[in-house]
């Protein structure tokens, strides 16, 4: 089997355990520590396994983040990725999904991968369109929502989730595949991996390095503008009780009142 060069798109996001905040310009506050989006750990693991199976090749990470953030990248490098490309540029503040895809696509092109992997959506923005937009910009075939991936020669075979179950889908390489959580069990970085990650190369780029026009990929080029951000109507506070061994009767009463039993 020939060497496999796999690019994995990874996002470094504010810790989802912390409550989200918006900046004055309504962009997400990313000033705190950023971490590797857990959804991306599945793609990293899948890529490492595919390279292993091919018997050669390497995994390159591609990420876009503010302030030259690398802490999330280091996590993925510690898992075993060989190197990373990071695009960090103030001009990208307020970039929409399409702009983000343009930046990622330009960076991915440099790595000339056989396969590009991404999560189906990030855990902070949830737009869920970036992987497919990247594929379109690179002129690659794509398969989204993979729950299993196999490589056979120049073809990628995927089990793609559907409403009813899954479809078997194939396409020629090079290609982009977006993976769901559950496609593989991500490894924990070993101590050796964590130490090695510190010296792995991270190529830090600006928008201009990618041959893109900064005025076209930031907030100015997004083609959309936030009009307002308001609190959603809150649900009325409910009744919260401690189980004293008889709380189930409360549930029965509640269901009775709604005539569902």
């Amino acid at each position, binding site marked *: 089997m020939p060497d496999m060069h796999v690019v994995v798109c990874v996002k470094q996001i504010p810790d989802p355990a912390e409550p989200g905040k918006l900046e004055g310009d309504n962009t997400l506050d990313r000033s705190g520590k950023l971490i590797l989006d857990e959804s991306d750990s599945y793609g990293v693991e899948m890529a490492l396994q595919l390279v292993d199976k091919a018997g050669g090749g390497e995994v390159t990470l591609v990420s876009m983040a503010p302030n030259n953030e690398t802490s999330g990248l280091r996590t993925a490098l510690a898992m075993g990725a060989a190197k990373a490309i990071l695009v960090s540029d103030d001009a990208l503040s307020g970039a929409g999904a399409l702009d983000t895809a343009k930046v990622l696509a330009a960076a991915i092109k440099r790595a000339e991968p056989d396969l590009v992997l991404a999560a189906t959506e990030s855990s902070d923005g949830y737009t869920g*369109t970036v992987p*497919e937009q990247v594929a*379109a910009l690179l002129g690659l075939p794509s398969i*989204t929502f993979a729950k299993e991936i196999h490589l056979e020669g120049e073809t990628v075979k995927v089990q793609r989730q559907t409403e009813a179950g899954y479809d078997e889908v194939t396409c020629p390489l090079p290609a982009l595949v977006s993976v769901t959580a559950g496609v593989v069990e991500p490894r924990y970085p070993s101590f050796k991996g964590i130490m090695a990650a510190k010296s792995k190369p991270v190529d830090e780029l600006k928008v201009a390095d990618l041959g893109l026009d900064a005025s076209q990929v930031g907030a100015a080029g997004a083609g*959309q503008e936030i009009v307002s951000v308001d609190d959603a109507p809150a649900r*009325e506070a409910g009744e*919260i009780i401690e*189980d004293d061994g008889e709380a189930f009767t409360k549930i029965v009463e509640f*269901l009775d009142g709604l005539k569902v039993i």
Partner: protein
Amino acid sequence: MALNRIWVYAEAADGKVSPLTLELLAKARSLAGTVEAVYGGADADAVAGTLGAHGASKVLATGDLGGSLPGVPVASAIAKAVNDGNGPDLVMLGTSYDGRDVAARLSVALDKPVITNNIDIEVDGDSIVVTEPIFGGTKLVKTKFTAAGPHIALFRPKSFVAEEAGGGAAAVESLEVADAGQAKITNRHVEEATGPKLDEAAVVVSGGRGLGESDKYQLIEDLAKLLKAAPGASRAIVDAGWVPYSYQVGQTGKVVKPTVYIAAGISGATQHLVGMKGSKNIIAINKDPEAPIFSVADLGIVGDVHKVLPKLIEALQAR
């Protein structure tokens, strides 16, 4: 008027139009005089009746996709029509597997933004404004399109109520595919499902990590059976492999709005809340009094699911 003509991406399985498509058609009708459906498949005649009854005046059909995933061919067909000067002002798509693919490919083909995860849309003077919930639905963001149309917007399931308009079958016209696509479906697998469907059931009983181990999911199944409910799950236990993905309720997974939603051993991560907080009544059982699920619960029981559920099941069996 800012919107004269809207295209709705129509999806169907085995000739049955998806509820999400009908929801979008209902909303589209309230916004524009001309609503047309774009359909990727060979059986446009089979769906033209339903689509027409829900307000589509035409079905613009690509014909047989030859096994291709719809993203590339359907987007290429819409883009070609737009470039030929026959496009709409707005393309509405549902947040589904294929809807997202089509929207993303179309956005690149037209070099236009796509605004995703919307639950509403309105015309405000000359502006088209969409509403998207963020931070687990605690805040609503309104965004307007600032570039020239056609605009592309994705909507979450159950954002609108489907309603028949009383029209006859829509006329079927063909929409030329410019790029057939290279990703091909070679086989389809349908997972056996019994009982009510998760996104249509009046009662949903979901379990999460608090159940402790996969065997305990049986408690959820037992309770669901007694209540004629659909069993659901949090992402955590789907990822852990306890139940299939089709059980998942949440941002990734199904959006449910049943009369009663029972969350057992689910802490209520943002990911989960987004998928169920629209339920009419919510009952939560969790041993952590600080769990976010209690912030949306009408009845919250701070307690051990392993104690509460067996007693509840026993009480319901005795009735």
